[in-house]
């Protein structure tokens, strides 16, 4: 602005000076005796062309380019203002293309590629054990604490080795009791990862000794939430599970650790890890055989892989020979890169969505090209006129480019907003595995490249009409005005519409297949009911619940009170909810009554998860009984109910009823009692249906007590409304008992399908946007064809043409590319079916319902887009049309 103002002033200065000069010269000639007229004429002659001088000075005072740019900018603004629909379509299309792509790519980058926040993260591997005989039921096992210690002592290939195991801690005494997700870790854990605590220290070797292990490092989140970012926190004492612990450190804010089943399905960690304590195995612990220690190693040289695997397997076999004499197996060692721990599960979903976003971007570019071509065509006469009047082709091109750049700036700006919102949304509400790794920040390079691509498209398409005009005599364009679009441009637009529709078809097919799969997943019978249930996770800890009787007493009381609540029709509890605990919880090999030699059968017999259930559990969960009976309220004798898959594994080929009355032994050794099977129930499948259920054996709670249980309450009304009443009952029994989680069963199941929902939602969203873009294109092409041929149509109608035929003609202009695009899109969708096959459930990629849905949607919407312009064509009044210019 200042620049423009000063230029204006400078021009005024020059004018004043020149005028003064002229006056002085005139005066001089008058003084010399000339007449005033003659003097003035002579002065003017001597001064020369004043206007020219002023222009020169004006030019000198600025850059012509800038001046032109400002003028073009104003011109472009006027053009945009006079053509709001065009501008709106371009801006929104650009913004959607840019926003969606940038958001998805930013998230994909941080989830799949960005280096993990550890020192030399690509050296870190997780170690799993594969027992070939068990592989079918349990693909991989974590280690026991003694296996970890043996590896730590004996491995030469992996000098850096650490371990972690889930640990739940109820914190009391300093505010609302809370159940914290935690982990016991080897004392070198923080050094191993190369992430020292932000405050205080990590653990020291001495703290691996029982008795010295009452020390914890807490997460930055816990430090801020619960302790108000207390700077003097290190050294303070807190009460965990009723025992005092000293806080020795606070982890840095972005400390990334595996959660849930990321390390191994058998040992799920909490969804959020807030606290760490050292692994300090007491002699008693060393003798038990809990395969619950995840082990991490550093492998600097990938060539060591084979050697390292053999070494660890050797150490494991030696140990097993001592501890389980007679059991013959050759365990294998699997090394999984730490990157895969975090992102292997979501990689496919993320890549699928990236591909969808890329297709959307291409669709957006085609759509932008389309509207720009239409605009160019409708401006052909204007361009021709200006060329005829002597405008430079470069100047006209520059104007077109300015206009498209201006739109690009607006579209890009809106795209940035979309990208920022989208990234935040994905990073905050995506599935857990994505949330853990994703940053909420937009990745600049992706943003810039998406903007560049759309802008280039716009600029290229803006220049085409000018180049086109270049080749022709302006006079021809002028004569024809808008009546005859350049044939090539019209064809190009039809091709573009076809491409848009093809891409929309591909996206829509993928979306429909995923949606159908999602509905299949949600409607599949899991062996239990999903609606009308509230769940509450509880974990009893501390002095008060040392004995099994105390634990049982608490749950008995609580369930009685819950059953007494007015709207509750059934209530029970189970140690591990099948919907979320697909593979975790206590498990044993199940032996038959005729088995005699433990060592020879332990790896032959199936493994079963032990599910401890209270009376009322089966009724509350809605588990289907297949044979025999459910547990009575009191089971005086040992009793077991087995799942149908356990029955099938124990007695292959026999009907479920055949299992009733048979006796089984629950792992360990041959001295465990024989337990009669009293019932067979349907398999309880995991919520996500992403794996086969591991066989299960149900035991009455009284016979297999557990400190952690999930309460289920069935109601006829809204289950969420029960939460307050149940919470009050828990509080009245034990005000210090934290409630780990309280969710309706639908929420529980819903959380297990979050990844499926994520990819389905995004795919459908992109498909709908692509379809809208395509439909706008179809409408534009048809509408334009009708508009530019108004006079032709008028002539035909005047000569007696059938209105129906005119309508068919107009309809076909838009519809032909739709049909071709649909056909091409369906072929492409089928050809690319491999990419999506793994994400489908209960259907193949040739699912007729989905494909019919896609075809119907596309044809219906496209028909509407063609129908309105076609109807307008048929309604043209010949008289008006002939006057149409």
């Amino acid at each position, binding site marked *: 602005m200042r620049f423009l103002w000063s230029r204006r002033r400078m021009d005024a*200065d*020059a004018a*004043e*000076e*020149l005028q*003064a*000069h002229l*006056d*002085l*010269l005139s005066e001089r000639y008058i003084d010399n005796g000339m007449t005033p007229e003659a003097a003035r004429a002579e002065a003017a*002659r*001597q*001064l*020369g*062309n*004043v206007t*020219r*001088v002023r222009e*020169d*000075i004006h030019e*000198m*005072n600025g850059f012509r380019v800038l001046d032109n740019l400002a003028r073009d900018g104003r011109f472009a603004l006027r053009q945009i203002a006079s053509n709001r629909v065009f501008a709106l379509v371009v801006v929104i299309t650009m913004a959607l293309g840019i926003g969606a792509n940038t958001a998805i790519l930013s998230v994909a980058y941080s989830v799949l590629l960005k280096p993990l926040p550890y020192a030399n993260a690509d050296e870190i591997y997780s170690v799993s054990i594969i027992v070939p005989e068990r592989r079918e039921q349990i693909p991989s096992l974590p280690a026991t604490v003694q296996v970890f210690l043996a590896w730590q002592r004996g491995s030469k290939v992996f000098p850096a080795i650490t371990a972690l195991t889930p640990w739940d801690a109820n914190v009391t005494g300093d505010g609302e009791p809370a159940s914290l997700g935690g982990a016991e870790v080897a004392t070198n854990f923080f050094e191993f990862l190369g992430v020292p605590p932000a405050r205080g220290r990590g653990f020291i070797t001495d703290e691996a000794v029982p008795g010295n292990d009452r020390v914890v490092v807490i997460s930055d989140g816990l430090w801020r939430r619960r302790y108000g970012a207390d700077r003097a926190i290190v050294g303070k004492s807190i009460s965990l599970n009723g025992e005092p612990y000293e806080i020795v450190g606070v982890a840095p804010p972005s400390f990334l650790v595996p959660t849930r089943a990321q390390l191994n399905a058998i040992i799920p960690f909490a969804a959020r890890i807030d606290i760490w304590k050292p692994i300090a195995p007491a002699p008693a612990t060393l003798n038990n055989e809990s395969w619950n220690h995840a082990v991490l190693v550093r492998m600097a040289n990938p060539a060591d892989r084979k050697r390292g695997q053999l070494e660890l397997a050797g150490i494991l076999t030696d140990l097993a020979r001592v501890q389980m004499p007679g059991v013959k197996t050759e365990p294998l060692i699997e090394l999984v890169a730490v990157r895969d721990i975090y992102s292997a599960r979501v990689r496919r979903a993320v890549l699928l969505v990236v591909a969808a976003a890329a297709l959307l971007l291409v669709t957006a570019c085609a759509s932008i090209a389309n509207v720009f071509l239409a605009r160019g065509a409708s401006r052909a006469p204007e361009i021709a006129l200006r060329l005829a009047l002597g405008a430079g082709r470069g100047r006209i091109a520059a104007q077109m480019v300015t206009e498209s750049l201006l739109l690009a700036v607006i579209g890009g700006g809106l795209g940035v907003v979309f990208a920022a919102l989208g990234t935040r949304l994905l990073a905050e509400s995506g599935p857990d595995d994505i949330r853990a790794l994703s940053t909420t920040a937009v990745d600049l390079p992706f943003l810039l490249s998406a903007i560049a691509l759309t802008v280039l498209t716009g600029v290229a398409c803006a220049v085409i009409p000018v180049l086109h005009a270049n080749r022709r005599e302006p006079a021809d364009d002028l004569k024809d005005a808008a009546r005859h679009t350049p044939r090539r441009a019209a064809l190009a637009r039809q091709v573009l519409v076809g491409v848009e529709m093809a891409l929309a078809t591909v996206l829509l097919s993928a979306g429909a297949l995923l949606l159908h799969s999602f509905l299949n997943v949600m409607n599949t019978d899991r062996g239990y009911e999903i609606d009308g249930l509230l769940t509450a996770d509880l974990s009893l800890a501390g002095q008060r619940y040392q004995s099994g009787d105390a634990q049982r007493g608490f749950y008995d009381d609580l369930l009685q009170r819950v059953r007494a609540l007015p709207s509750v029709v059934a209530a029970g509890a189970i140690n591990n909810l099948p919907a979320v605990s697909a593979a975790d919880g206590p498990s044993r090999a199940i032996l038959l009554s005729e088995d005699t030699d433990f060592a020879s059968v332990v790896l032959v017999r199936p493994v079963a998860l032990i599910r401890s259930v209270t009376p009322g559990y089966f009724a509350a969960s809605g588990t289907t009984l297949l044979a025999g009976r459910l547990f009575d309220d009191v089971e005086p004798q040992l009793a077991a109910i087995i799942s149908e898959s356990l029955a099938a594994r124990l007695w292959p080929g026999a009907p479920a009823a055949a299992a009733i009355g048979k006796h089984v032994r629950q792992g360990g050794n041959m001295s465990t009692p024989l337990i009669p099977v009293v019932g067979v129930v349907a398999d309880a499948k995991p919520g996500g249906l992403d794996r086969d259920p591991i066989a299960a054996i149900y035991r009455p709670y009284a016979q297999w007590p557990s400190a952690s249980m999930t309460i289920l309450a069935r109601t006829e009304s809204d289950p969420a409304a029960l939460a307050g009443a149940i919470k009050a009952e828990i509080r009245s029994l034990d005000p210090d008992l934290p409630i780990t989680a309280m969710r309706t069963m639908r929420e529980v199941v819903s959380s297990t399908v979050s990844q499926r929902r994520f990819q389905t939602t995004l795919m459908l969203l992109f498909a709908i946007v692509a379809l809208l873009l395509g439909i706008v294109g179809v409408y534009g092409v048809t509408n334009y064809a009708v508009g530019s041929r108004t006079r032709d149509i008028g002539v035909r109608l005047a000569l007696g043409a059938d209105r129906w035929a005119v309508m068919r003609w107009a309809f076909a202009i838009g519809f032909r590319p739709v049909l071709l695009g649909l056909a091409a899109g369906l072929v492409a969708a089928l050809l690319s079916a491999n990419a999506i096959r793994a994400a489908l459930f209960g259907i193949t990629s040739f699912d007729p319902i989905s494909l019919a849905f896609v075809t119907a949607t596309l044809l219906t919407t496209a028909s509407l887009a063609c129908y309105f312009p076609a109807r307008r064509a048929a309604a043209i009044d010949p008289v008006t049309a002939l006057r149409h210019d």
Partner: protein
Amino acid sequence: MSKGTPDRTDVLQGMLDMMVLQTLDTMGAMHGYGIARRIEQISDAMLKLNEGTVYTSLMRLLQGGWITASWGTSENNRRARFYAITRAGRKQLVAESEKWDRLSGVIARLRTGEK
């Protein structure tokens, strides 16, 4: 283009800039009209000059930073813009003058056939 008698010399752009600079250097701050008069006087009306181009030249020199301009009052009480040479302008004048001298030396030698 204005008409002129054939025996008068056209003033080229670079020459005019140098003349204006030289004038300001010799005479101190002057307005455009004064500069035109001075050039006319010195050249003895041998030069064909559109006096308007003096202002174009002044603008060029201003942009080069070789002169400065400020509004003031002329000897006959008119508002006038006065131009003054800057230090950079003097340097430029020296450089241009040397160039000019070299050039005219070469031309002189060419004409006399000296080596």
